[in-house]
C-alpha cells in the first residue's frame, strides 16, 4: 500500500505539480461539494492572503474546472446513462506497457549496432571539428566523444585500455571487476571499475570530471601518489606533477558536460572564454576585441550556432558584429554604445 502511494506521488511529481497547486485544487473540490459557510469562506480568504501566488493557482484551477463543464454537450440529451466510450478508453497502464516495449526494441537495435561497430579488440575513433558522437563499446560501456578528438580503444582479456590522443571523452563504464577500465592521455592515467567520468586532454595534463562512482588517477611514474576522485568532483592531473587538489563541482558538472547534448552552457564565463568554447566546435572562428575582457555571460546555446551567440552578445553588450566566411568578430560599437 505504501509502495503504491509512493509511486503515485512520484508520478504526480513528474507532471510538475507543485504544493500550491495541490492546495488550490483541494479548495476547488471542497467548494464544489457544497456552498461554503462563513467559517470556510474566512479560511479560504486567509489562505489566499497568505501568499500572492495562491490567488493565481486558485484562479487557474477554478478556470480549468469551469472549462470542463463544456464536455457536457457530449452527453446525449434524454439518455440517462454515460456514453460507453467514456469507460472504454485504453487504461494508462496498458499504454505505458506498450511504450516500454517499443522503447526496449530501440535499445536492442542500438546494442546490435554497437556490437557491429566494435567487433575487433582495437579501434580508433576520431571526430572532426563540430561533430559529437556517441559510441557504444563492445563491453556495454558508452563513450560520448566531443569535437575534434581522437582515441584508441584496446580491449584485452584482463584490461580495457583507452588512449586519448586529443580532445575530450565522457565514458559510462560497464562494471567488470576482472577487467579494469583505464584511460591514458599523455602521462595521465585514470582508472575506473564501474563509473561515469570524462577526460579532457590539455597541453600539460588532463581534466578529469566524475559524474558517478569513483575513479583513481595518477601520472606515469607517480604510481605511489594515486588519488581517488568521487562522483561530483573534478581534478586536474598534470603530466609531470600528478593530480592536484580534488575540487567539489557537482553543480558545474552538468553544465561542463552539456556538450554531450550538443550544447554550450555559460555561467559567468568571460566573453573571451565563451568564444574559445565555441571555437572548439566550429571552423568559422569567433574573435573578440581585446578591449572586451570583463563582460561575463550566462546562457545555453547550441555548439554549432556561434552566430546566434554573437548576435545575442551584441544586443546585450551593445557590440558590433562583423561576419566573414572565416570569422565572426565582436568589437565595441561606438555609434550604438555612446
Amino acid at each position, binding site marked *: 500500500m505504501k509502495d503504491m502511494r509512493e509511486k503515485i506521488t512520484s508520478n504526480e511529481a513528474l507532471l*510538475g505539480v507543485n504544493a500550491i497547486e495541490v492546495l488550490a*485544487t483541494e479548495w476547488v473540490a471542497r467548494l*464544489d461539494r457544497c456552498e461554503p459557510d462563513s467559517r470556510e469562506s474566512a479560511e479560504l480568504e486567509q489562505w489566499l492572503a497568505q501568499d500572492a501566488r495562491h490567488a*493565481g493557482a486558485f484562479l*487557474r484551477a477554478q478556470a480549468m474546472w469551469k472549462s470542463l463543464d463544456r464536455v457536457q454537450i457530449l*452527453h446525449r440529451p434524454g439518455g440517462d446513462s454515460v456514453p460507453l466510450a467514456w469507460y472504454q478508453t485504453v487504461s494508462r497502464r496498458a499504454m505505458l506497457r506498450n511504450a516500454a516495449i517499443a522503447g526496449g526494441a530501440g535499445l536492442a537495435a542500438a546494442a546490435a549496432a554497437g556490437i557491429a561497430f566494435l567487433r575487433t579488440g582495437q579501434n580508433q575513433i576520431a571526430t572532426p571539428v563540430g561533430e559529437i558522437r556517441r559510441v557504444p563499446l563492445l563491453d556495454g560501456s558508452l563513450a560520448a566523444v566531443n569535437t575534434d578528438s581522437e582515441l584508441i580503444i584496446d580491449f584485452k582479456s584482463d584490461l580495457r585500455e583507452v588512449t586519448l590522443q586529443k580532445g575530450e571523452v565522457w565514458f559510462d563504464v560497464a562494471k567488470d571487476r576482472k577487467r579494469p577500465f583505464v584511460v591514458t592521455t599523455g602521462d595521465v592515467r585514470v582508472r575506473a571499475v564501474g563509473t561515469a567520468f570524462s577526460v579532457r586532454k590539455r597541453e600539460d595534463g588532463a581534466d578529469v570530471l566524475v559524474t558517478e562512482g569513483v575513479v583513481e588517477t595518477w601520472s606515469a611514474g607517480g604510481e605511489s601518489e594515486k588519488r581517488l576522485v568521487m562522483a561530483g568532483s573534478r581534478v586536474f592531473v598534470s603530466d609531470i606533477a600528478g593530480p592536484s587538489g580534488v575540487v567539489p563541482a557537482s553543480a558545474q558538472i552538468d553544465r561542463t558536460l552539456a556538450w554531450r547534448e550538443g550544447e554550450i552552457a555559460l555561467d559567468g564565463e568571460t566573453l573571451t572564454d565563451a568564444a574559445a568554447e565555441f571555437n572548439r566546435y566550429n571552423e568559422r572562428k569567433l574573435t573578440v576585441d581585446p578591449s572586451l575582457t570583463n563582460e561575463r555571460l550566462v*546562457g545555453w546555446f547550441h555548439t554549432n550556432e556561434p552566430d546566434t551567440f554573437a548576435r545575442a552578445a551584441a544586443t546585450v553588450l551593445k557590440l558590433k558584429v562583423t561576419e566573414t566566411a572565416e570569422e565572426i568578430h565582436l568589437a565595441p560599437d561606438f555609434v550604438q554604445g555612446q
Partner: protein
Amino acid sequence: MAPRDRDAFVEWVGRCVLPWENYVRGWLRRASVRAAEIDDIVQEAYSRIARLDDFHHISNPKAYFLEVTRNVLFEQLRRSQIIRIDTIAEMDGPIIPDESPDQERVLIGKDEIARLKRLIDGLPDRCRTMFVMRKVEGLSQRQIAERLGVSENTVETQVGRGLRLILGAWTNETNERHARKDNQQRSIARRKRD
C-alpha cells in the same frame, strides 16, 4: 469582486485565457526560459490576472496574457545580477503577435471539447468515473457518493486529485508539443546551414 462577478470572471479566464497558456509557455520556451522557471512565471502571471477588478475592457486576451507574462519575465531579468543573454536574443524582434484573434478562437472552440475529453480520458479509472459523472452527467458530489456507495469525502478527494492531474497534464502537453516543434525547427535550421 462580488460572487456573481467572480463566476463570470472565472468563466472568462477558462474560455479566453487558459486556452492560450500553451501559446504563452511556447513563447517563454523560445525565449530560452527553463522549464522550472516557466511554471513560476506562468503562476505569477495568473496571480496578476487574479488581481484584475474588471475584465470587460480586455479585447484581446491572448495579447493581454502574453503582455502580463512578459512583464513578469522582464522584472525577473532586471532583478538578476548576470544577464541571461540567450533570453535577450529571442526578444530582439517584435513581441506582440498578430491581432486576428477571431479566427483562432473559432479553431480553439472546435478543438477544445476534444482536448478536454482527452484530459478526462487520461485520468486513472476511479477518478475518471467520478469526473464523468460530475462533468458529463452533471451529478453533484453527494449524488455520486450515493450512486457509487462511497463517502462524500472520497468523492471530494478524487475530484480534487483529478483536477490536479488534469492541470498537470495541461502543463505537460503544452511543454511536449513545443519541445517537438523546437526540435523540428532546429533540424530545419541545421539542414539550411549544410
